[in-house]
C-alpha cells in the first residue's frame, strides 16, 4: 500500500508500487575512478536491447561521439579533459615545454557540434562558456572572473592533466517523476524497484521526457515512443546481470542489491580519500536526497554538473499535493466568478 513517503523521502519503492514480497531492490553503482572509457557498456547494451545506432558524427567532445543519453543510447560514456591535478598521480607534463591548456577552447568547439541521434529532442547544442568551465574545472562557480593559477586558462604552462570518464545511465529514482506522470501506466515500477518503459503500452505522449530531472528519457523519432535503460528487466528477471555490468572490464559498473552497493561505495570513497583523492564523492546514493536516492548511483571525481548531472535534483511530484491544492483554489475562484457574474448585476 502507498507509504507516507509515497511522493517524497526515503522509501522502498517496490512494496509501495504494490509488489507483495518483492525481491531486494537491485541497482547499479558506477565507480568512475576505475572507468577506462572503453564504451563496452554502450555496445553491450545496444547488442542486448537491439537499440539502433545514434548517428556517425564526430563531436569533438574528447572521445565522446555519443553526446548524451538518448532513446538510442541507454548508456553514455562522458569524457572530460581537464588541466587539473589527478589526485595521487604526478603531473603528466611536468618539465615539458608546454604552453597554455587547450581543454577549455576545445570544449567550447565541441559544445556546439550537432549529431542526428535519430531521437527527439536528442542532443541540443550547448553553451561554449559553460563548456569551457567544465574543461577548466568547476572552481569558478559563483566567482565570475576568478582565474586561479594552474587551471590552464591563463598564459602559464600546463603540467597537470586528468581525463575523466564516466558511464552515465538512467538513475532508476526512488521517486521517479517519469513513472508518476505517465498517463498510460507504460512506465512502471518493477518488483526489483527499477523503472521500466513498457514498449507495448507507451503511446508517446512525451510527458515523462519533461518530467525527468536528469534528462535521461527521450523519444525515438521514427517510432514515437519513449525509450531508456530498463536495467535489463528481462535479464535480471532470469537472475542474470545487466548487459553493461556484465561487459564492464574494470568493474566500474557494478550491479547488485542496492544496500550492498551503497556499503561498497562508502568503503570505496573512504579508501580513495585515504589514498589522497579528496575529490572523490558519491552522487545519488542518499535516500534522503531530492529523489529519495537513485537506484543507479555514482562515484564522481568532480562536481556533478561537470559530468552533465544536475547538482541537486528534486522530484517534481514532491510538490504535487500543493499543486492540486492551488488548482483546486483556482477552480473554486473560477466557479465563484462565474456564479457572481450571472447572479450579480442586472443587465
Amino acid at each position, binding site marked *: 500500500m502507498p507509504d507516507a513517503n509515497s511522493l517524497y523521502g526515503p522509501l522502498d519503492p517496490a512494496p509501495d508500487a504494490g509488489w507483495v514480497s518483492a525481491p531486494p531492490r537491485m541497482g547499479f553503482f558506477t565507480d568512475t575512478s*576505475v572507468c*577506462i*572509457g*572503453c*564504451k*563496452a557498456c*554502450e*555496445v553491450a547494451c*545496444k*547488442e542486448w536491447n537491439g537499440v539502433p*545506432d*545514434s*548517428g*556517425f*558524427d*564526430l563531436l*569533438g567532445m*574528447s*572521445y565522446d*561521439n*555519443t553526446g548524451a543519453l538518448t532513446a538510442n543510447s541507454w548508456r553514455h560514456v562522458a569524457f572530460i*579533459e581537464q*588541466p587539473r591535478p589527478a589526485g*595521487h*598521480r*604526478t603531473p*603528466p*607534463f*611536468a*618539465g*615539458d*615545454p*608546454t*604552453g*597554455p*591548456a*587547450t*581543454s577549455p*577552447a*576545445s570544449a567550447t*568547439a*565541441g559544445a556546439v*557540434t550537432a549529431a542526428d541521434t535519430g531521437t527527439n529532442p536528442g542532443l541540443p547544442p550547448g553553451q561554449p562558456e559553460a563548456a569551457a568551465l567544465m574543461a577548466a574545472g568547476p572552481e569558478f562557480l559563483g566567482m565570475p572572473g576568478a582565474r586561479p593559477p594552474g587551471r*590552464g586558462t591563463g598564459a602559464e604552462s*600546463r603540467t597537470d*592533466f*586528468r*581525463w575523466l*570518464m564516466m558511464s552515465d545511465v538512467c538513475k532508476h529514482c526512488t521517486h521517479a517523476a517519469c513513472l508518476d506522470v505517465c498517463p498510460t501506466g507504460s512506465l512502471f515500477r518493477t518488483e526489483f524497484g527499477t523503472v521500466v518503459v513498457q514498449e507495448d503500452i507507451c503511446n508517446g505522449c512525451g510527458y515523462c521526457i519533461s518530467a525527468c530531472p536528469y534528462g535521461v528519457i527521450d523519444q525515438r523519432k521514427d517510432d514515437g515512443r519513449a525509450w531508456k535503460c530498463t536495467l535489463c528487466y528481462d535479464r535480471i528477471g532470469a537472475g542474470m546481470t545487466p548487459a553493461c555490468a556484465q561487459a564492464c*572490464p*574494470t*568493474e566500474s559498473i557494478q550491479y547488485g542489491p542496492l544496500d550492498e552497493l551503497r556499503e561498497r561505495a562508502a568503503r570505496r570513497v573512504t579508501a580513495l580519500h585515504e589514498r589522497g583523492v579528496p575529490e572523490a564523492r558519491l552522487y545519488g546514493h542518499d535516500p534522503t536526497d531530492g529523489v529519495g536516492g537513485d537506484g543507479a548511483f555514482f562515484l564522481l571525481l568532480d562536481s556533478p554538473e561537470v559530468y552533465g548531472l544536475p547538482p541537486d535534483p528534486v522530484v517534481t511530484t514532491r510538490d504535487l499535493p500543493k499543486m492540486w491544492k492551488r488548482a483546486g483554489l483556482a477552480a473554486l475562484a473560477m466557479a465563484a466568478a462565474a456564479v457572481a457574474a450571472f447572479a450579480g448585476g442586472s443587465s
Partner: protein
Amino acid sequence: MAEAHPVGFQWVMEAKKRGAKVFHVDPRFTRTSALADTYLPIRAGTDIALLGGVVRYILENQLDFREYVLAYTNAANIVSEQFADTEDLDGLFSGYNPDTGSYDHASWQYDGQEGNATVRGTGKERDSASGLEHESHGEPVPARAPRDETLQHPRCVYQILKRHFSRYTPEMVARVCGIPEERFLELARAWTENSGRERTGALVYSVGWTQHSVGVQYIRTGSIIQTLLGNMGRPGGGILALRGHASIQGSTDIPTLFNLLPGYLPMPHHADHPTFDEWVDSIRHPGQKGFWGDSRAFAASLLKAYWGDAATPENDFCYGYMPRMTGDHGTYQQVLNMIDGRVKGYFLLGQNPAVGSAHGRAQRLGMANLDWLVVRDLFMIESATFWKNGPEVATGEIVPEECRTEVFFLPAASHVEKEGTFTQTQRLLQWREKAVDAPGDARSELWFFYHLGRVLREKLAGSTQRRDRALLDLAWDYPTHGPHAEPSAEAVLKEINGYEVATGRPLGVFTEARDDGSTAIGCWIYSGVYADGVNQAARRRPRHEQDWVAAEWGWAWPANRRTLYNRASADPDGRPWSERKKYVWWDPDAGEWTGYDVPDFEKTKPPSYRPPEGASGPAALAGDDPFIMQGDGKAWLYAPGGVLDGPLPTHYEPAESPMRNPLYGQQANPTRKIYEHPINRMNPSPPEPHSQVFPYVFTVSRLTEHHTAGGMSRTVPRLAELQPEMFVEVSPELAGEVGLAHLGWAHLISGRAVIEARVLVTDRLTPLRVDGRIIHQVWLPYHFGTEGLVTGDSANDLFGITLDPNVLIQESKVGTCDIRPGRRPTGPSLLDLVGDYQRRAGMTPDRKVPVVTTDAAGGDDAAGSTDEQSAAAHQDGEPHA
C-alpha cells in the same frame, strides 16, 4: 593496454587495488595513462635510450638481484678479446661489413669460442629473418664458456654491460627521449624497488614495439632489465607481449611465414641446407645443451606428418620436396616484386594490406599489377576494391579499364561458424565450438584449402612432373562431414599434436617424438594438446573451481606450462626465492619438481644434478639451468649470437627522424633492411640535409573502438558510431604553431603520400624538449580506409618501408611528416604536392639512403631549427593546398 586490450587491463586494475604502482610510457596520453599512477610522455622511437637508462641505473647502484644474476644468467661469461663495443666504434660493434650492412658474429663470441659463430656478415640471416627462429630458442653456444663468478673480469658480460650502458645517464635519457630527469628517476626507482626476492615487477608492451627498425632490441633491453632484476620465470614478473590478433601467436607457432616451419623449425635454405642432415644439425647444434638437441626427431616427425607413407628414413622423409629460400621472401619484398610484375597470384586471407600494411600506395599498386588475386574475408575490404575506388583511382594511377588484375572475392566463415583453436597472446590454445552454419557461399579456410588441395591433386593425377610429386604424395586425407564436406578440425588438431604412426595413438608430450618415422607431428611444441585422444584445448573448467593458475582452462604450449622457465622461480637449490613469490619448487621427499604450475623442467632432475662430461641435449642441462631452451641453459644479458644488429641493444634513431642521434655518430640501425626502389623513398634524416622539410614526428596506433584495418569494426554500426571519422591528435602548441582548429581539417605529408584528417587539439599531447630543441609529435589512428560505414584516409599510407633486420618487421610506429591546415588536394594535384615535397627534400629516385652515417658538413645545422625552415617550405607548397 586499456586502449587496445581493455579486458586484459582488468588485471592491472586488480594489481592497482593491491597497491601496485602503474607506470605508462607513451608518446600520447591514452586511456591507459588516465588510470596509471605515473605517465611519461616519450619521443617515439627512443625506448632503448629510456630502458638503457634503467639498465645503467641498476648497474651503477648495484641494484641487480645478484644471486639470480650469478646463477641463472651469462653475466659471468667472459667475452672474446676481439669484441669491440659501440663505445669504441661510435655506434657500431666489431665485425661490421659495410658492403652487406651486416655483422660477422665471430668477435661477439665468448672467449675462445670465436670459431663457433655461424653468422658471417653476409646479410643472409637477415634476409631469412632468422631471428624469428629464436622465438623459442637461442643461438647456438657451447655448453660451457669461461666464467668469472666475481664479475670483476673486464671482459665479463657484467662489466661489458656496465660500460656499454654507462653513457645512458639520466641527462642523456632527457636529451634523447625528452623525459625530464626526475621523472625518469621516479620510474627507475619504482622498478628496482619493486623487484628482487620478495617482489616482482612486470613489463607489458604492445606489439607496436616490434614495429621499429630496432624492434627486437627494444624487447632485448626489456629482458635485460627483467633478468638483472630477477623478474623472469617468476609470478608477477616477466615480459608480456600484448598481441593484436585472435591467433597471431598461433600463426607464428604454426607459421604462415616464409622462413619458418611449424614449431620454429627453419624453412630450408638452398645454400645452408641442401641435405636433411645439414638442415637438422643446423637446428640441434650437436653438443649443445637443451631440448633443441632432439630436433632431428621434431623435423622427421613434421615431414612424416606432411608426406605420410611416402616419407621414410631412406628418402630423408621427402626432405627433397621442401622448397628452399634463397634470400628475403617477406611480404614487403613480395609487394615490390608485384610492382615489378614478378608475382602472378596473391592470396589474402582475412588480411587487408591496402590499409593495414606500411606504404599502402605500394600495396595497392602491387595488387594492381597481378594476374590474379584471391580475397577471402567477411566483408568487402579495401584490398578487394583497390581497382574500383582506391586512392590511386582518384589520382589516375590506377585506371579500372586498364587494370588487368583478376579478382576473386570469396566470403569467409566467421569465428562462430566453424570450430578450431585460437592461440592467444600467452600461448594458450582455446577450442571454439561451432554455433551456426555459415551463410551462403561463406566457407572456412579449412574447407577452402582442403578442397583446393583436393582439386589440385585431382588435376595433377597421373602427372609425371617432378615438381608435382610433393603435391601428389602429400598426406591429404582428412575426414569430412556435413553437406559442404567440411574437413574435421579435430582430425587436423590431432595431426598437429602428433601420433604414433603404427597405432595412431596421439602423443602426450614432445619428448615422445622419434626420428625413425614412427611418429608424425604437425607442430612439436603443440604435442600434448590432444593427449590421450582428448581435446585439451576444449577444457573449460570454471575458474572458481580451480586455483589462480587455472591449469585446466584450455592448454598452453609447451606441455601446458603457463609461465615459461618457471624453474627460475626457485633458487639454485630448488627452494622458492620467497614465500610470497613461491610458484614452482623442488620437493626433496617426493624427489620431484612441484608447485602451482607445470614445472618447466625435467620433473625428477634434482637441483644438484650436474651433467657428465660430453653430455649434450637435455641431459647436458644442470639442475640449476632454468632456461632450458637456451644453448647453455642461461638467460642472456649479452647475446653472443642470434641477434643480428648487436649483442647488446643500442639506441639508434628511427629510419626517419628530425634528430641527430645524440648518443653515437651512427644515426640509425646500420643493419636495418632497406629497399632501394623508386616507390620507396625515405624522408631524409640528419645529418642528411633537408630533413627539416618533414619537421614533425608522427606515430600511429589503435583506438579501443576499432580493430586494425577496420574490416571488423568500420563495418559494424555499434563500433563505427563510437569513432566515426579519421582524425589527428595535435598538441595546442603545435596547433598554434601551424594554425590548426579543433574539429577543422588538416593534411599530413610524407615522402610517400598525403592524407587528410579532422583535427583534435588536445592537452593529451605535448611537445618535448629534446637535445635543446622542441619536438612536436602528432598521433593518428590507422583504422580508416575507403570501405565500410565510416571511411577516411589511411595513416599507414604515410610510411615508407624499412625493416628490422632480425624479423623483417617494418618500422611503422614512427616517421616524419609535415602537417598543414585544410583539406588535401584531390586528383593529380595530390601527386604534385608529394612531388614538390620530394623535390625540396632531395628525395630523387637515384638517392641512396645512407646506411653507415658519414657526417655531411652542415648536416647538424640543417637539422637545427625546423620551425622557420618548414614555414618557408610551406610557402613553396602553398599553390597546391
